[in-house]
């Protein structure tokens, strides 16, 4: 228990020292936002009527479900053109909001490569990066984009260190940041120790809280996309554990972004359970005033390379978000299998999902036995892991998390992160729910373990063969392979 990191709020002193010495110097555009008061004032003005957290609250009060498309291209012109297109042609405004992708060089703080990508994009007349390099362009360009869009915006610059990106985004009146730690390591990292990632993110969370305290409510994304192929128990645990880290830093609005496995009942159970447990654990640790919003993030596995199949995916993922009663449904597009989304593709998704919302009339999946069982299983798993962490960390979630990963009782499959043991084996059951075939060192309660195995036995029976490794592999591409190929 010799962890450096603790789940403790950063002092202002510490925060501003890090800001000055570590964050703003990461790239030359950091200088533009040295004056935090100016940034907050500008953010307030720029996001007036387009505040992310407020829009969520408003939508929830009115019983409206929002839509959140995603977009990111190298050049600012492409961005403005794209956002405008989707907002008008796709009908995103007013009941929508944006997730803007930065590119992956930016996310790895390789701003020199990002600069080369900008250059290259200009030369080729095409977007050669997989997102908008917010740091290279700096705050004024980000503000230009903010002005061009009619709806709230948040930045997805998820990776080890999103601090400078988030600084610029918040200063530009985009009102989202990230409550990340385990999620990022699992999704995008290779070497970084979890302790360091938590330390980095404490800064970002604190930053969001400072804006909020100064009158610009920031809603952070607390997300469990992970590897795209995780059990709902693991996903929910990631979200709940992160909620404590974020809340400690003073975050008041958290968007729980749930990676969907496309298993209707299990996904709905994930969404409900994780929100409930976030509230419960936050309350238990004295963060009683955090508000949560929920979203479904479309399937993070291989997508099909054809329009109609992609539309089926868009529709089914949106249907799950609708039936789960999410505050918003995040959208992928028909381009998913091919390349970064085009404005036409995203506009099409918005139309499709909007119409689906209309014809579904806000119906949600009613409470029922099956849902309760799934919720109970997820809850048991999360509670076991949470308590084990808190125990190991002597009440400190940050410490517990680090120890759990180190020991391998916090574990998932398919992460590029070398600190993740990757001993679990995951597979779908006969109804498409994601189950542990082998829980590795995860301390699953016996009941949960048996339930998963029983469900998998159902698949073996249905398919008339033993479970085998081929099934694991085939599951990875079940949604992408077109019939007859």
């Amino acid at each position, binding site marked *: 228990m010799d962890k450096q990191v603790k789940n403790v709020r950063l002092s202002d002193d510490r925060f501003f020292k890090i800001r000055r010495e570590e964050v703003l110097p990461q790239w030359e555009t950091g200088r533009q936002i040295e004056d935090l008061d100016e940034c907050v004032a500008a953010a307030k003005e720029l996001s007036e009527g387009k505040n992310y957290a407020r829009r969520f609250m408003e939508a929830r009060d009115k019983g409206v479900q929002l839509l959140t498309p995603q977009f990111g291209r190298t050049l600012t012109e492409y961005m403005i053109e794209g956002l405008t297109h989707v907002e008008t042609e796709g009908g995103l405004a007013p009941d929508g909001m944006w997730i803007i992708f930065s590119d992956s060089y930016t996310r790895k703080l390789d701003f020199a490569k990002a600069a080369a990508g900008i250059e290259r994009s200009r030369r080729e007349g095409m*977007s*050669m*990066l997989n997102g908008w390099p917010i740091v290279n362009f700096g705050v004024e360009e980000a503000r230009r984009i903010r002005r061009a869009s009619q709806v709230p915006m948040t930045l997805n610059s998820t990776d080890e260190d999103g601090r400078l990106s988030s600084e610029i985004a918040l200063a530009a009146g985009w009102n989202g940041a990230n409550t990340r730690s385990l999620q990022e390591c699992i999704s995008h990292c290779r070497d970084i120790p979890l302790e360091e990632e938590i330390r980095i993110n404490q800064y970002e969370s604190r930053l969001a809280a400072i804006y909020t305290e100064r009158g610009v409510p920031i809603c952070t994304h607390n997300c469990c996309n992970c590897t*795209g192929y995780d059990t709902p128990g693991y996903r929910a645990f990631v979200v709940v554990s992160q909620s404590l880290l974020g809340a400690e830093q003073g975050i008041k609005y958290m968007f729980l972004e749930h990676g969907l496995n496309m298993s209707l009942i299990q996904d709905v159970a994930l969404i409900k359970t994780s929100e409930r447990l976030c509230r419960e654990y936050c309350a238990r640790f004295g963060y009683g005033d955090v508000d949560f919003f929920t979203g479904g993030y479309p399937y993070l596995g291989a997508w099909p390379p054809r329009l109609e199949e992609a539309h089926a995916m868009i529709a089914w993922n949106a249907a799950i978000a609708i039936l789960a009663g999410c505050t918003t449904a995040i959208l992928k597009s028909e381009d998913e299998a*091919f390349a970064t989304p085009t404005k036409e*593709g995203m506009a099409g998704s918005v139309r499709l999902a909007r119409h689906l919302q209309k014809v579904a009339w806000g119906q949600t999946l009613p409470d029922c036995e099956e849902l309760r069982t799934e919720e109970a299983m997820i809850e048991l798993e999360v509670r076991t892991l949470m308590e084990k962490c808190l125990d190991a960390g002597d009440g400190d979630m940050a410490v517990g998390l680090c120890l759990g990963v180190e020991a391998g009782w916090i574990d998932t499959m398919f992460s590029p992160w070398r600190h993740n043991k990757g001993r679990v084996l995951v597979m779908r059951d006969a109804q498409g729910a994601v189950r542990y075939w082998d829980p590795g060192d995860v301390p699953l309660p016996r009941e949960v373990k048996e339930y998963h195995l029983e469900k998998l036995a159902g698949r073996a029976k249905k398919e008339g063969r033993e479970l085998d490794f081929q099934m694991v592999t085939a599951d990875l591409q079940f949604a992408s392979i077109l019939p007859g190929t």
Partner: protein
Amino acid sequence: MSKRQANRSVVIGTIGADAHMIGGWVLEKAFRAAGFTVAFLGAVVPQQEFINAAIEIDADAILVSSMYGMGVLDCEGLRQKCIEAGLDDIILYAGGTVAAPLEIEKNWPEVERRFEELGFDRVFPNTCTAEGAVAALKADLGIVD
């Protein structure tokens, strides 16, 4: 194509800042099943690591996965580095979703042209199966089982 005695060994990894590794994982399983020695480097792999691993296992080929759209950029210079390291005739494949703009990704001859220019022997779209990849490499190595 190959001028050397095939050694049934490949390096597999995802290049650059790219964190996607499921495709590589699937490839690894398939190549192992087909009797290859595989150095599987996971994701976020710098060019030099591919080369070091290739030297270490005396690889017939390097299979570069690039999913996140910047493969066209990340693969620049790899062939030269191979040559400098004395891996003159090593086979270089790239695969995945190698270009961020849909204009390129949906214009496959253009993708092929670009990767040829980069000194790659083949480039595969993400509809390529692991079995397809094994078959292609076997063909290029003149392996008939």
